C-alpha cells in the first residue's frame, strides 16, 4: 500500500456479512462513514473503530480497518488509551444511546471534557436494540417497552446537552439517511479534539419512525434546521426560524409565514456555547450540523505527549541504572 491509489467505499468494507435487520438506519450510517473515509483519503491501516456493545457497536466488524468491539459502555476509555499510546492513528468511537448514555455515560463525559483527539458517533435510536427493545435514556416519557409495560416514567436526556455540559468542544448532530452526514463526519474528523456527533437512527424493529417528523424525505424539510456559521437559523424549506426573545433570554421557534423576516432571526455562531445550548432542544424542529466548535481548546493527547517530551528534554532520556542509584545508596564490602 505504498502508493495509496484512490480507494473506494468497497475498500473500507470488510469481508464480514453485515448483520443488521433489514431497513435498519445503521446501514446508512455505515455507508456514510465509508464515504467519509474515501473523501478524506483515509488509510485503512491507520484507521481504528472502537465500539461498545449494542446493534450499533457491531459496526467495526464491517469496516476494513483496525477495530475493537469492546464491552458495554467503555469504548471511550479504550479509545483514550489507544490514542494516548498511538497519536498517529485516526480513532473513531462507535456507540449507541444505551451504550454511551446509560452504562457508559461517565466515560462519555470524561472523554469529552479531556478533548481527546478522536471522533465519536452516537447512534441514537432511543431504544436498546440488541437486548430487544427496552426503553433507553433518550426514550420519551411514556415509551411502552418490555421493561416499561405501562410506559416509561424516566425523563430523557438530550445527548448534545450532556455533551455541552461536559465541556465538549465539538458538538454535531445529524440523522442516518441524509447526504449531509459525511460532511459533518468529515468536520468532526478534521477537528483537533473530540468530535462528538449524535446521529438520529431509525430502528424499524423496536422504535420505528420515532424521528420520522424530522427525517422524512419530504415533510422533514420543514423541521430540519441545518445550522451554518454566520447564517440565519431557518429550517431547510424556510418554514420555521429561530428568534431570540431578549426579554426572557429564551429562543423561540417561529413560523416564517407569520410575518417574520430573516433579519429577525438569530445567526448561527458555532463558537458560542450558549447559543448551541439554546438551540439544542427546540420544540418542533431539530438543529442539525455543527452546533458548536471551539478550535482553540487544548487537546488532551497532545498535552500528554508534550509533557513526556518536556520531561525528556529537561531530564534526558531515562536511565534505569542511574535511577536505581538515586537518593541514598551505600556499599557493603
Amino acid at each position, binding site marked *: 500500500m505504498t502508493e495509496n491509489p484512490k480507494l473506494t467505499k468497497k475498500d473500507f468494507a470488510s469481508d464480514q456479512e453485515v448483520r443488521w435487520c433489514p431497513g435498519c438506519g445503521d446501514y446508512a450510517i455505515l455507508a456514510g462513514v465509508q464515504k467519509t473515509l474515501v473523501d478524506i483519503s483515509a488509510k485503512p491501516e491507520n484507521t481504528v473503530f472502537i465500539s461498545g456493545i449494542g446493534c450499533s457497536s457491531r459496526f467495526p466488524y464491517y469496516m476494513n480497518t483496525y477495530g475493537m468491539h469492546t464491552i458495554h459502555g467503555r469504548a471511550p476509555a479504550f479509545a483514550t488509551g489507544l490514542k494516548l499510546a498511538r497519536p498517529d492513528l485516526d480513532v473513531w468511537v462507535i456507540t449507541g444511546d444505551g451504550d454511551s448514555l446509560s452504562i457508559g455515560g461517565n466515560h462519555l463525559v470524561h472523554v469529552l471534557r479531556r478533548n481527546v483527539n478522536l471522533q465519536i458517533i452516537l447512534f441514537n435510536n432511543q431504544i436498546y436494540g440488541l437486548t430487544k427493545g427496552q426503553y433507553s435514556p433518550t426514550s420519551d416519557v411514556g415509551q411502552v417497552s418490555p421493561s416499561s409495560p405501562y410506559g416509561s416514567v424516566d425523563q430523557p436526556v438530550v445527548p448534545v446537552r450532556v455533551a455541552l455540559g461536559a465541556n465538549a468542544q465539538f458538538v454535531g448532530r445529524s440523522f442516518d439517511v441524509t447526504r449531509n452526514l459525511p460532511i459533518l463526519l468529515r468536520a468532526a474528523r478534521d477537528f483537533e479534539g473530540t468530535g462528538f456527533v449524535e446521529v438520529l437512527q431509525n430502528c424499524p424493529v423496536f422504535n420505528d419512525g420515532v424521528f420520522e417528523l424530522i427525517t422524512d424525505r419530504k415533510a422533514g424539510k420543514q423541521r430540519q434546521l441545518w445550522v451554518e456559521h454566520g447564517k440565519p437559523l431557518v429550517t431547510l424549506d424556510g418554514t420555521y426560524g429561530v428568534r431570540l426573545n431578549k426579554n426572557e433570554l429564551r429562543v423561540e421557534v417561529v413560523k416564517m409565514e407569520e410575518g417574520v423576516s430573516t433579519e429577525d432571526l438569530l445567526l448561527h455562531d458555532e463558537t458560542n456555547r450558549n447559543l448551541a445550548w439554546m438551540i439544542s432542544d427546540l420544540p418542533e424542529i431539530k438543529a442539525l450540523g455543527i452546533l458548536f466548535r471551539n478550535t482553540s481548546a487544548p487537546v488532551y493527547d497532545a498535552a500528554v505527549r508534550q509533557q513526556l517530551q518536556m*520531561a525528556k528534554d529537561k531530564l534526558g532520556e531515562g536511565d*534505569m541504572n542511574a535511577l536505581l542509584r538515586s537518593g541514598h545508596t551505600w556499599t557493603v564490602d
Partner: protein
Amino acid sequence: MQETTREDLDSVVIRFAGDSGDGMQLTGSQFTSATALMGNDLATFPDFPAEIRAPAGTLYGVSGFQIHFADHDILTPGDAPDVLVAMNPAALKVNLPMLNRGGLVVVNRGAFTKSNLKKAGYEENPLDDNTLDPFRVLDLDISKMTLEAVKEFDLGAKAAGRCKNMWTLGLMFWLFGRDRQSTVAWLREKFAKKPKVAEANIAALNAGHIYGETAELPSGIGAYNVPKATLEAGEYRNIDGNLALAWGLTHGAKLANIPLFYGSYPITPASSLLHNLAKLKNFGVATFQAEDEIAAVCAAIGASFGGSLGVTGTSGPGVALKAEAIGLAISTELPLIIVDVQRGGPSTGLPTKTEQSDLFQAVWGRNGDAPLCVLAASTPGDCFFRAIEAVKIATKFMTPVMLLSDGYLANGAEPWPIPDLGQIDDFPVSFYEGEAEGFHPYLRDEETLARVWPIPGTPGLQHRLGGLEKGQDSGNISYDPDNHHAMTELRAEKIQRIAQILPEATLDSGEAGADLVLVGWGSTYGAIRQSCERLREQGKNVAHIHIHSIWPLPRGLKELLSSFGRIIVPEMNNGQLAALLRAELGVNAESYAKVAGQPFRIAELTDEVARRMENAS
C-alpha cells in the same frame, strides 16, 4: 568529648509513635536511612490511621513506624518492639501493650497534659503511677527542650514545636550510634526554599544528640551498638514495594522494547505506584489518571492494542470493578498487567491495613472460564523482579497477568542490593508483520500458544478484536459449539504452559521429606522463613516452600508436596491458597489463617505450628 562505650546488641526493634501530625513516618524513614547506611540489615512497617489528619491526641490518630535492624539477615519488622518512642499519651496507650517487658520507653512528658491524657482515656498520668514499672523509661520534656533548641530561629510556637521529632531522632541517633549526616542533608534539600526551617530542624536534631551525649541517662539505659550485618557485598539502597514495582514495570517494558502505559485510579495502598510512575515521564512512561478503575483498565487494554504494554494498578475493590474488562483482555488475548496491592476486605474493609485476601478474586473472580496468570511478590525488593517477570509473561504469552502485592510490601522498606541490570536478559517484542494472505489475528505460536500481535498501522493486517467467541481457525465470530469448547481449553492450556518458563517448585529452606512443610506466598515470606528457622532450632523437622506463581502453580509442586507428612499454609486470609492447593493438586493442605490486617509475628507463627505439631503427635 569522651568516647562513649556502647553495648553491642545483635538486633533491635524500635517503634516510633505519635500523632499523625507529629511526623513519625518521616522520623522513622530518616532513622531507616541512617541505619541502612550503617550496614545493618533492616525491615520496616509503617502503620498509620485511615484518617488523613486525625485530631491531635486521639487514640485513632496515632501513627506508628516500626523498624527492625540487626547484625544479621532479617526479614520482618519484628514481633514486639524493644524500644518505644511515645510522643504523647495516646501513642503510649496504643503501643505499650506490644512492648517487650524490660523494653525501653522514651516519652515526651511535655505532651502529657491534662487534655491529652483525657483524650487518650488515662485517668492518671501513666508517667506518675506504676504503669511503666515493667519497663525502662526515659522520661523527657522533649517539647520544652525542642523549643529551647530552636528559639533563636523565631519560628513561632507552632512551627518550633514541629521540630520535636527531629530532637527525638537526634537522641535516638545517639542512643544507637547512627550518623546524622544523611538527615542533615535531607533537611537541607527538603527545606531548600525555607532555610530557616531547615536550620531549626538541624538544631533540634543536634540538640537531641547532644542531650544523649551529655545528660546522665538513668541506670540501665546506655548507648548501644548494632554491628554491621554481613550482607552480601554490593551497592544497596532502601526500597519499598510500590517503588520497586514502578521501576520493575518500567524496566520490564524496556526489556520488551515497548512503551509502558499505566492507567489507574487512586486507591490506598496502590496510589503511590501511580505517583512513582508519573515521575518517570523521561523514561517514556505515560500515566493516565482515569475517571474510575474501569476506564483505567480499558485504557490500558486500548494501549496494548496499539502496541504498548498496558498496565493498571489498584487494590481489591478496584480489581472487582475491572473484572469484566479483564475478561475482554483474556478473550482478545492482549498483554495486560493488573497490579493488585491488597488491603483488608471485604468491601472497603480496612483500607490502610494489609491482607492477602484477593487470591480467589485474582484466580477466579470473573464471569465464564477466564484464566489468566497470577504472580505474587514476596518482599519489597522482589516486586522489582516480579514486575519484570509479569511483563515477560504478558508479552510472550499474549495474556493478562495479575500481579499481587499488598499493603505491607507497598509501604514497608528494606535495604536492597541494587541489581546489575546487565544480568537480566531482555525479551524484545516483535509485532507481527506477516503476509496478509491467510492472516488472522488468532494465528498462534505452537509452543506458547500465544497469538500473534499485529498492531494498527500495519498495512494489510487490518482486523477486529472483540469479546464474542472467535473461530479457532478464522478469528471471526463463531457460535459453533465445538469451537467454543476447544477455545475454552486452549485458553486454559496457554496459561498452564507459562509454567514452563517459570522456575520449578523448590524448597526455600528445610529438606524434602520433612515432617511438615509451611507453604506460603506473598509478603509472609520473611515471617515464615524465620519461623521455620526457629522451629528447626527447636529441633523440629520443618521445611518452607514459597510460591511466586499462583496460577499456573510451579511445575513439580505436587510431587514436592507429597514428600511431606503435613502441609500447613499460613496466610493473611481465611485459607485461600490452602483451598486452591486442595482443589488443584488434591493435597491435604491445612490452613493457618490470620486475618487481622497485620503481618504474622514470627513468634505467633512459630508457636502455632509447634502447637499443631504437638497436638498431632
